[in-house]
């Protein structure tokens, strides 16, 4: 029933979104705030000057307590984003069940990791998660490539997971590779103002936080879907 799908997505999405927020406030947002210091010029990374290059010391920004309204909004939007992920995933789960593929909470974890690959990992292979202040290609171009990559990756994984025989597997691999063969939009110059260490840690940590949150999302979504099913 559609109500089961909606309720499962809502519960799983809000729970995973809140856990994602916790992970982000612990691991990701402090780096983001530090990156903003370089974006705004409060700190500089080897800026050119007349005598010696200027370098600010490393260290966290003023802290999370500075702007509670901003961080509350971030928490709310994390929940919204994960509810959106959950709605799409439970729809795909229900479709797979109709096609005869059994679902369980354990399998839900694999579903969640596949969702992570679709929404974060594959797009990040072309467009790395950006610290604030990163200068990059036109946002609409990046969004278009992102969408193309997500759709192509989802199709590829579905062909590999549910297809029978060599042909679907080969097509699946092609679908996974296609966005990266065509390539993400990039500028022809590097403009980064933040230290590469900071940008790299931001990218890896945001992916790690998303992977953990997606695994939980898949588990919870499948668990709620199974639980909502009337006993036969």
């Amino acid at each position, binding site marked *: *029933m*559609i109500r*089961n*799908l*909606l309720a499962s*997505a809502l519960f799983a999405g809000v729970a995973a979104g809140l856990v*994602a927020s916790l992970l*982000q406030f612990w691991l*990701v*947002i402090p780096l*983001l705030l530090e990156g903003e210091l370089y974006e705004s010029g409060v700190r500089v990374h080897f800026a050119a000057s007349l005598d010696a290059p200027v370098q600010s010391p490393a260290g966290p920004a003023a802290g999370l307590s500075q702007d509670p309204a*901003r*961080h509350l*909004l*971030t928490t709310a*939007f*994390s929940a*919204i*984003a994960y*509810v*959106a*992920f*959950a*709605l*799409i*995933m*439970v*729809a*795909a789960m*229900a*479709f797979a*069940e*109709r096609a005869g593929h059994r679902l369980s909470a354990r399998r839900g974890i694999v579903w969640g990791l596949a969702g992570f690959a679709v*929404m*974060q990992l594959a*797009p*990040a292979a072309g*467009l*790395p*998660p*950006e*610290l*604030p202040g990163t200068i*990059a290609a036109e*946002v609409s171009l*990046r*969004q278009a490539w*992102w969408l193309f990559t997500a759709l192509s990756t989802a199709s590829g994984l579905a062909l590999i997971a549910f297809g029978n025989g060599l042909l679907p597997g080969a097509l699946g691999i092609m679908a996974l590779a296609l966005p990266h063969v065509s390539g993400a939009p990039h500028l022809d110059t590097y403009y980064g103002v933040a230290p590469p260490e900071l940008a790299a840690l931001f*990218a890896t940590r*945001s*992916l790690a*936080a*998303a992977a953990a949150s997606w695994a939980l999302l898949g588990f919870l979504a499948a668990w709620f879907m199974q639980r*909502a*099913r*009337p006993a*036969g």
Partner: protein
Amino acid sequence: MTTTTFSGTRSETGLAGIAAVALAGFALLAAAGFAQATVIHDSAHDTRHSIAFPCH
């Protein structure tokens, strides 16, 4: 002889329902992750960066 009825199909959602749920997800994702209207962009800014979406 006992017959067991598999009732799994009874609770299955129809294709139209599945499509509606997926559409709701895409719409929500477009708002939270993609919309460039200033208010939405600014509110969702940190989330978009944190979940590796193209932001601005």
